[in-house]
């Protein structure tokens, strides 16, 4: 069962597989996002309280979710890289950081715009917003730590520890609306209970979530392929790749 896992750890194998999967992820993700946008902007009915303003949800919520998901992927990859000493895993972690930072910035900006209309203020230091901002700083710190090291291996391993230390922020962000009385609203879609949101509104949202996730896969795989190339010295398989491209 672990054979596929260790096979993926082999850089040339990973490079080839990732190369074949990327177009699929890109197209499927793109179509899902397009469908979600159309559904969210056109077909979803206006909200009872917020009118058409709630449509920001369709870009804000997936971005926020992806900012967390990316960090989890990064931390997981970092742990695998540390434990199994896998270069590919470290490459995945390194690739996650800029993507995660972008999603976090997107969540913060779209949230601020939405908040300005809904709450009358574009920022408030409540638990969720503050911890999401900390997440952005964690991504930046991770990238800064990586670039501070010239030696790739030390950069990989030091930043892996940082990623694992910062993972404590992820449950804080997620449960902040449960643990504290925040201005940011609590979750309205839960896997357990029946969602408190109309189906015509829910379907585009789900499409966007999946679309973002799958597109993230395409972007991540592209970056990882680049990172893997940087980590391999003059291996023969690279020669073959270069002669093909």
């Amino acid at each position, binding site marked *: 069962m672990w054979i596929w896992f260790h096979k993926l750890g082999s850089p040339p194998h990973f490079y080839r597989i990732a190369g074949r999967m990327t177009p699929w992820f890109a197209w499927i993700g793109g179509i899902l996002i397009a469908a979600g946008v159309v559904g969210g902007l*056109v077909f979803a009915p206006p909200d009872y309280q917020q009118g058409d303003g709630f449509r920001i949800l369709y870009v*804000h919520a997936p971005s926020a979710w992806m900012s967390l998901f990316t960090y989890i992927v990064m931390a997981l990859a970092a742990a695998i890289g540390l434990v199994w000493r896998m270069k590919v895993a470290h490459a995945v972690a390194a690739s996650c950081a800029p993507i995660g930072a972008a999603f976090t910035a997107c969540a913060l900006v779209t949230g601020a715009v939405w908040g300005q209309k809904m709450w009358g203020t574009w920022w408030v230091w409540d638990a969720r917003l503050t911890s999401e901002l900390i997440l952005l700083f964690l991504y930046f710190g991770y990238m800064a730590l990586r670039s501070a090291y010239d030696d790739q291996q030390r950069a990989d391993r030091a930043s892996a520890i940082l990623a694992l230390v910062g993972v404590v922020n992820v449950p804080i962000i997620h449960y902040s609306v449960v643990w504290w009385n925040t201005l940011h609203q609590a979750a309205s879609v839960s896997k357990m209970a029946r969602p408190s949101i109309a189906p015509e509104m829910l379907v585009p949202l789900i499409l966007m979530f999946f679309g973002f996730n799958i597109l993230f896969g395409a*972007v991540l795989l592209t970056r990882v392929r680049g990172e893997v*190339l*940087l980590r391999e010295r*003059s291996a023969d398989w690279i020669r073959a790749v*270069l002669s093909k*491209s």
Partner: protein
Amino acid sequence: MTLREFLYMGGYAAYVWPSYAFTALVIGWMIAAARRAHRNALMAARKRLEMERPGS
């Protein structure tokens, strides 16, 4: 619903459209930057191999 009404977004146009635009920008950057990074890595690998075994 006319195009006008659609763009007007029930009065929330100034909030909805910039949000979508920013998101599109971010995703566009994400894709472009990833492809650029891959391309640069390929070039760096090519250069490295050139130096080690010229003419390969």
